[in-house]
């Protein structure tokens, strides 16, 4: 065990901090502390330009291997980068689905041709991705996807038909990774494929869904003979489930480090409010703030512990990682409640009409979804109990 950073790492910290200080200025100044949880819909274009600025400095995809266009940074350096990124108030990353999910999946499971075709756009911050997993009938039961992919011999392409739902940022994205059924007679997790689909084509239609925040960050995506090149299936037809699950491993891996630093910024904002309105004199609020801080540190130390020496490039994490989503989502939801209790009666007043929420209100509403997306709390508990602890599985209902 060694709980400190090396002199080289500290040098790296200085380099990151200086670059951010010099570049998070001018047109990017207004992006400071924006685009985080509940604020993703803000400044999409400016944030994409910022993504490209980061790329110029070599600060996108820093954990990826160098041969894939990354910087090959160690876990320590990724920790440091995220700390400094958050300290500088740099904005929520517009490219996080590409950098954190699509890219690592392509690196782990994709062909050389796919790596050449897709990784550079992610590294450069020019191409954004979205995640096409959920469907009206496939939420927690993800394996129940009905969207189909049929190979059209004449066209030499896959044709995709069906509907995805809750697809975050589909309206801003260039590509979507789609799980679809390649074997029409298959059920559950067999017979699925993992496709890389271009959004700008006649067969793809995106319709926004309004959220309880009044804004619209997620969408319905309809595929009507949407085309996907023969070489744009990751793995073989039938491998879709394996690839999709590998990706979920990334969702719970290093990409969490940046998220925790955003949480720290939010907690700081709550503490600032409490100081400003006197709620910090209330012993109950003080205790809840202390608890929030302690739990955030637990999260941070634990994710470093989980990542230490084991975050393989295939994204595989140890059993301990199973607990992570449940813990952070529940923590974040409580932070929202704390924020509203700190604000007291003011918490119900909007920034402006017709429905312009304050930052903390957006956060409060948004965190209601943290315990739902990416596997609900209930599903996480099932996974912890069944896979982590080996408790008896629930009997399966025969699928029609």
């Amino acid at each position: 065990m060694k709980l400190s950073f090396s002199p080289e790492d500290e040098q790296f910290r200085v380099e990151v901090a200086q670059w951010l200080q010099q570049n998070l200025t001018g047109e990017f100044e207004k992006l400071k502390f924006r685009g985080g949880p509940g604020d993703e819909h803000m400044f999409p274009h400016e944030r994409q330009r910022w993504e490209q600025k980061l790329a110029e400095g070599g600060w996108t995809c820093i954990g990826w291997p160098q041969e894939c266009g990354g910087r090959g940074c160690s876990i320590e350096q990724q920790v440091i980068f995220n700390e400094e990124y958050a300290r500088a108030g740099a904005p929520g990353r517009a490219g996080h689905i590409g950098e954190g999910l699509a890219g690592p999946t392509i690196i782990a499971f994709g062909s050389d041709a796919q790596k050449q075709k897709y990784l550079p756009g992610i590294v450069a911050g020019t191409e954004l991705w979205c995640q096409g997993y959920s469907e009206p009938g496939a939420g927690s039961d993800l394996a129940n996807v009905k969207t189909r992919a049929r190979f059209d011999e004449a066209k030499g392409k896959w044709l995709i038909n069906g509907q995805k739902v809750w697809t975050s940022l589909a309206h801003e994205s260039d590509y979507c990774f789609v799980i679809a059924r390649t074997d029409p007679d298959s059920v559950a997790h067999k017979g699925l494929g993992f496709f890389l689909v271009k959004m700008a084509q006649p067969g793809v239609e995106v319709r926004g869904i309004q959220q309880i925040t009044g804004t619209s960050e997620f969408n319905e995506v309809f595929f009507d003979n949407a085309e996907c090149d023969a070489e744009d299936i990751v793995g073989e037809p039938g491998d879709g489930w394996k690839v999709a699950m590998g990706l979920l491993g990334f969702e719970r891996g290093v990409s969490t480090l940046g998220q925790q630093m955003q949480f720290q910024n939010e907690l700081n904002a709550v503490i600032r409010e409490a100081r400003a309105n006197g709620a910090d004199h209330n012993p109950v609020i003080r205790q809840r703030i202390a608890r929030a801080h302690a739990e955030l540190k637990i999260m941070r130390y634990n994710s470093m512990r989980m990542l230490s020496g084991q975050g393989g490039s295939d994204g595989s994490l140890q059993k301990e990682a199973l607990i992570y989503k449940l813990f952070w989502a529940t923590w974040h939801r409580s932070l929202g409640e704390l924020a509203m209790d700190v604000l007291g009666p003011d918490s119900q007043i909007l920034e402006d009409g017709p429905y312009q929420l304050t930052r903390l209100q957006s956060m409060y509403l948004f965190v209601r979804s943290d315990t739902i997306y990416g596997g609900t709390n209930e599903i996480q508990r099932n996974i912890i109990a069944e896979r982590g602890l080996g408790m008896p599985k629930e009997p399966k209902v025969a699928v029609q």
Partner: protein
Amino acid sequence: MDFTFTEDQLLFCDSVKNFLQAEITPESLRASWDTDTGRSDELWQTIVELGLTAMLVPEAQGGLGMNELDFILLAQECGRVALAEALVETALVATPLLSALVDKDPRCASLLEKIASGEIRVAVGHPANELVSDAHVADWLLLPSGDQIHLLARDQVKLVTQHSVDPSRRLFTVEWKATDETCLAGGPEGVQLLAASLNRGALGCAAQLVGLAEAMVSLTVDYTADRHQFGKAIGTNQALKHHMANCAVKSEFAKAPLYRAAYTLSKAPQNADFAVSHAKVAAGEAALLAAKNAIQSFGAMGYTWECDLHIFMKRAWALDKFWGHTGFHKNRLHQWLMNPNAKIGADKTFGIQG
């Protein structure tokens, strides 16, 4: 000892419940969000015709001379449908405040008569709330200034709209000037009336919160029976059953302190602080838990504007912080409990509090 409501109280509640459930629907609420006032004069007149605004108006002023206990079940029903009209505040706060001053100021008697007949509406400000709800549709406003209570016509005040997280609510900052003419009461009497108003406002909130909690549970029970995942209704999962069972326990148990608070307010209002705070805390916790577990059980669907759940969640979040938030009421509870003369003990179950 008898903790039940009378046959009459229950029958009347049933008929009001039927009326509210027919008239106040998620569709009608949504439609109201896009209108100028967000309120319907027609609906208010129907409420008046049912005698609801007259219930707590003294008989001498043409009312029914009823009390808090007669109204509490109705307030719960107003919460259940997320009624936006300020009926609960009119009946439970404005009316008793004016009634307390009938003998002192002739204006009060006339206002009470007109509340009962539906000719006017009265909004109430209070130091516990920075904002006044439904001031825009009120003809008269009762406003606090220090230990004084003032009566102003709407054209004597300036209203500044404040938007609420609950799109049904209409909240205002009121700018106005206190004069001798506008003053209805002050000094110790004013202090006492303001304290009573706080308790009545909090009681009304608590009742609505219990109704909201039950409404959210009921929506969720229906949804989890319809929605299928893994080849079965999601409601078959114990995780969700337990979520709803926990909510049911909270809201059912919040009813006892709620009814007890209504009783105390009607019998010994000067001693009702403890009972009211207890009710507000219990009801707030029930409603917030119902909101949390309901959206969780709905999954992503509950996070959409289109799904009716948020109508109820947002009202619950708003009312939990109105007429004293939970922290405020818990403080009152512990201040009372820590008092060395606090009357707690074997023979004090229903004993005078405070």
